[in-house]
């Protein structure tokens, strides 16, 4: 694998800024490692109650549940903290990762019997470029750059990479932009 990955750059996600335009989805399908399949998720949060949309990429957990529950040891995290799509030779398409990921990210591609997911456009980021989705997002819901750049753009927000799911605390490589001063996002108590 290439070693031009820029460790000074990070991913910052701000779901409230998502306008549901699906530009990220179209761009994601350009990523060569996905085989032209979009891996990003753009959802209506609750279509019957509001037009709110949300965007979700892989958060690249420090201790990825998907990898731990994989019976085939097909999911691996590299030295840059990127949790890669399933190793095609090993994945046995059991869907454990799909159903265990706390962020609901991996997809099982049924005819291929294969799990695929966002790998932060590794074909681009490993060459020092930005992920496709972040380059096309018109509303700033997806941003890839340095912490300093992000602080200038969002002076009233803080990047947070700690998530509480009840008693479980999950730390991630990807940040979510929270109100200034927050240190974690409590999904539920």
């Amino acid at each position, binding site marked *: *694998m*290439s070693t031009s990955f820029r460790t000074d750059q990070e991913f910052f996600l701000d*779901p*409230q800024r998502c306008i549901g335009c699906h530009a990220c989805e179209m761009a994601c399908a350009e*990523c*060569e*490692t*996905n*085989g032209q399949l979009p891996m990003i*998720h753009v*959802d209506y*949060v*609750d279509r019957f109650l509001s037009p*709110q949309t*949300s965007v*979700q990429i892989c958060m690249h957990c420090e201790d990825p*549940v998907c990898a*731990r*529950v*994989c*019976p*085939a*040891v097909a999911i691996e995290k590299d030295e840059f903290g990127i949790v890669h799509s399933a190793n*095609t*030779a*090993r994945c*046995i*398409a*059991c*869907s*454990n990762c*799909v*159903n*265990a*990921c*706390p*962020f*609901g990210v*991996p*997809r099982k591609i049924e*005819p291929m*019997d*294969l799990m695929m997911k966002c*790998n932060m456009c*590794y*074909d681009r980021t*490993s*060459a020092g470029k930005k992920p496709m989705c972040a380059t096309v997002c018109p509303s700033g819901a997806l941003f890839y750059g340095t912490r300093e750049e992000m602080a200038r753009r*969002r002076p009233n927000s803080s990047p947070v990479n700690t998530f509480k*799911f*009840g*008693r*479980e605390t999950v730390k991630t490589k990807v940040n979510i932009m*929270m*109100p200034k001063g*927050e240190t974690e996002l*409590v*999904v*539920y*108590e």
Partner: protein
Amino acid sequence: MISTLNRLALTLATLATLGLVAAIYLGSRNLGNFDPALVAYLFACIFACFGVVYRYSVWLQRPPTWRYFARGWQLFFSGRAIVYGWEFVKNFFVNFLGQRFIQKRGRDLGRGHLLMAWGCILAFGVTFPLVFGWIHFGLKPGGIDTYEIYTFGFKTMEFPLHTWIATLIFNALNWSAFLVIAGVMLLIRRRLTHAGQIAVQTFEGDWLPLLLLLAISLTGLGISLDYKFMDGKAHQFMAITHAITVILFLVWMPFGKFFHIIQRPAQLGIAIYRKAGEEGPQAVCPHTGQAFTSQLQVGDLKDVTTQLGFDFRRSDGGSHLDYSPQGKRALLATAHLKARQKAGSYFG
């Protein structure tokens, strides 16, 4: 080093290796049919057996792997052996032998892998019994134009020399080499031209296996080339280089990419598990109100994640794992919205 070894795996690997040695001894009729020229291959096979069983045993002890392994057997003996047996057979032919799922991953990948896999299956089918002395050939007594094949010392077949069947049988490893070379070529082209593959490929994981299979096939063909067209002048060189490449393959099998050949049948167990899940109660997501997987899988995942040290229980008595992927994404977005609302501004 000994203290870091997995004792159960060590015991199973030792037993399997002793079992193989006994099977070779008995199957070759007290080594009477064993070909001493193949002794280096034999030791590599014995090492590969130990390594493969050791790694497989360690692999099986991982909580998620063990759960599927135990469930697979439990389902098989649950009184529905015919239903699950049919699922097993169907998947064996369609996905294991036919490799349909790999065809769906890409045309070149599908064709290349199928050629390579069938070349290897044919080569394994010929090489292992020959190396173990389980099969041997001989001239039929009383003549010079008929060959006999003996399996475990019993005559199983005879065929006349200088016929198409003799050509087919004597060149079995050459046919397998042609299949493997064609497959490797397709896959090498893909690795050289597909940007996504280039981004994530590694030498050890992706290139070395292809190059090793290519080397085995070319040196194997070299042996035939030598005795047919070069009067055996390069026999020593061809035989030794072929032996080196094959032995490297066997010794590396427990450690590298080729271990997936041993792991892949687990997919057949998953087919049974999925069938059982479809027939049983479904898990319905509290957010979407739709079924997303089987309760069997959700229940097993709850156990496995607990075993692994994760705790996704909710204070209301439920679990985060009761939610579908879409439901989980909605929970996160809702929590983020609430945090923004609480701070008094949607954006910041």
